[in-house]
């Protein structure tokens, strides 16, 4: 039985979550490895959420927002566009592989795209193997 990565997805309500719903209404199948958490706008996604998810044992975190220029709140997704690159640089310093955190723009009409992204990410993470973060934090007794 091969390793099944656990992905936490943070999706904005207006574009990406609708896109994911559209994948549903269109019956587009994809890997069941993602667990979606809905926020009103990708700008609500505090980098702490991403780190928290990794610390709680996620093998990957997927952040989705409206395409640039098409944000329901006109410019929320630009905040996300600015935060994620630095967050990824930071996570690298903690030894967390680049592929574990992914930012994608998914519109309300891109159900297929959402499905493809989840499948692709699942495959990449499966190849990468389980995240070491939760394990590393699991030592309640001190390490020698």
């Amino acid at each position, binding site marked *: 039985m091969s390793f099944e990565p656990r992905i936490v997805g943070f999706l904005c309500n207006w574009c990406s979550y609708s896109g994911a719903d559209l994948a549903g209404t269109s019956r587009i199948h994809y890997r*069941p490895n993602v667990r979606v958490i809905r926020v009103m706008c990708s*700008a*609500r996604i505090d980098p702490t959420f991403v780190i928290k998810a990794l610390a*709680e*044992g996620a093998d990957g975190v997927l952040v989705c927002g409206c395409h640039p220029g098409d944000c*329901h709140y006109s410019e929320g997704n630009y905040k996300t566009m600015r935060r994620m690159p630095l967050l990824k640089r930071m996570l690298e310093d903690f030894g967390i592989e680049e592929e574990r955190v992914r930012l994608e723009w998914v519109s309300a009409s891109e159900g297929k795209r959402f499905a493809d992204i989840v499948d692709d990410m699942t495959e990449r993470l499966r190849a990468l193997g389980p995240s070491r973060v939760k394990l590393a934090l699991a030592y309640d007794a001190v390490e020698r």
Partner: protein
Amino acid sequence: MTEKRIGVYVCNCGTNIANVVDCDAVAEAAADLPGVVVSRSYKYMCSNPGQEMITQDIRDEQLERVVVAACSPRMHEPTFRRAAETAGLNPYLVQMANIREQCSWVHDAGEMATEKAKDLVRAAVYRVTRHESLERLSVDMCPHTLVLGGGIAGMSAALELADAGKRVYLVERTKALGGNVARVDLTAPYLDSARDMMTDRVTRVIEHPDVSVMLESELEKLEGFVGNFKATISHHSSGEGPPIEVVDVGSVIVCTGYKEFDASRVTHFGYGKLPDVITSFEFEGMLKQGRIEMKDGRLPQYVAIVHCVGSRSEEFHGYCSRVCCMTALKYAHEVKSALPRTYVSDVYVDMHAFGKGCEDFYRRSAEVKTLFLMYGKGDHPVVRRADPGDDCEMLITVDEQLSGEQIELPADLIILMVGMEAREDSEQVTHLVNISQDKDGWFIESHPKLDPVATTTDGVYIAGACQAPKDIPDSVAQARAAAARILGKISRGKLEIDAMFAAVNEDLCSGCRVCNEICPYSAIEFDAETKRSHVISALCKACGACVATCPSAAIEAKHFTDEQIFAEIAGVLA
């Protein structure tokens, strides 16, 4: 975190969910979660008995929180919130787990789908435990409405509202009302005069005491929120009155219409090179002049009408423009009645005659001796100059589908049925009124079936061909529907706006002012006296950008607090 009495309801959605997810197992698993006192699996939670099951439990079991695992919250959250409310539970104490659109409909039946459903339910339970009762804001509903666009849709909406005694500001960019319909001669399928129809509308609108028509005007800025918008309108006419005007409105209807497809983008018809290849609108012009003729003034002996120019093509627009087919038939009739001896041929792909009376119209057109030739989708007729000696100006080569033969067709006048496309300024419009466009540029309605006139922005509606290609009756129907929606809101006088907004805890705010620039709605104010920032809740649209930005965790997003989201994270991963 003190435990709450929680009820969990797993919807089977008939077999929609149950076929893939083991709903009973999900309900059983949920029963063991902290605080869960009731956990049921039921065929249709959104049905009346389903909702009654919930309200009954709220009363009998003194439930403090409710989790419904069913379809997308974007579908039925309002339903279950209302159910909770009827049982006296604050609607914000309900949380949904989306196990249909984002689980059963997208995964194969089996262990993993059921496990995912359990995780989503656990997350919902953890989250709902941390929910707080929230009170919706009640605000005044301004009875005035802003209508953008003076075409048939805009005028219909305006009249509907004004006849109900409500003020309307009708903003039209051009010098005259009427829009695209005013460019049309007769209308299909009954061949009555568009002109008569329009003159009546236009006069009524202009003379109506409750409609302020603003010609050569444009919306510059729309601020505020449903029931309380401030619209800044600029007047370009050199006439009297200020160049800029600000009006209070409660609602906005966008009726900005469409623009015709530019035929010169298609090369093989020779449009722009061959003098007697014209577009449908150019032909309408001729009809209104009352004389069908060629460039050199001669009367055409052969008239050919070509369908689907720019529509239903890989290269240009994939969609059908819906009105061209019937218009083409109308042209056949008008040519025949003006020039009985002229041969009319109609080169089409499929004949779309779905509207009321259209099929009869199609039959009648066949009777008036129109030659119908069918070309294949993806293929296209080719036009060339006729050779000297031919008795026509041009020849059209068509791979005729029904006969299977290649046919050469004589033509003196070729009418290209150009389709509809979104106006190039429609993107600016989306930003002005904060709605979105689909991939073809048409404005997106809030629900394609159940809510076709509203948008994702409360108080902003769409009507007419700006939403998708439409004929006149559909445009009018949508316009009046939008007006009806608004009248409903106005009649209530007050309206409730969602209790989700951001709030600054000024005890934690350091006045660093990082959030000030963040808000796209300028809902955050800095008080130089107290050295604190605060949110004007009515202006806040609850995106949460400032919340994620505040380095002091001093801003709280109601119903999307850090604590609630952390709980959800822990829930899906537990």
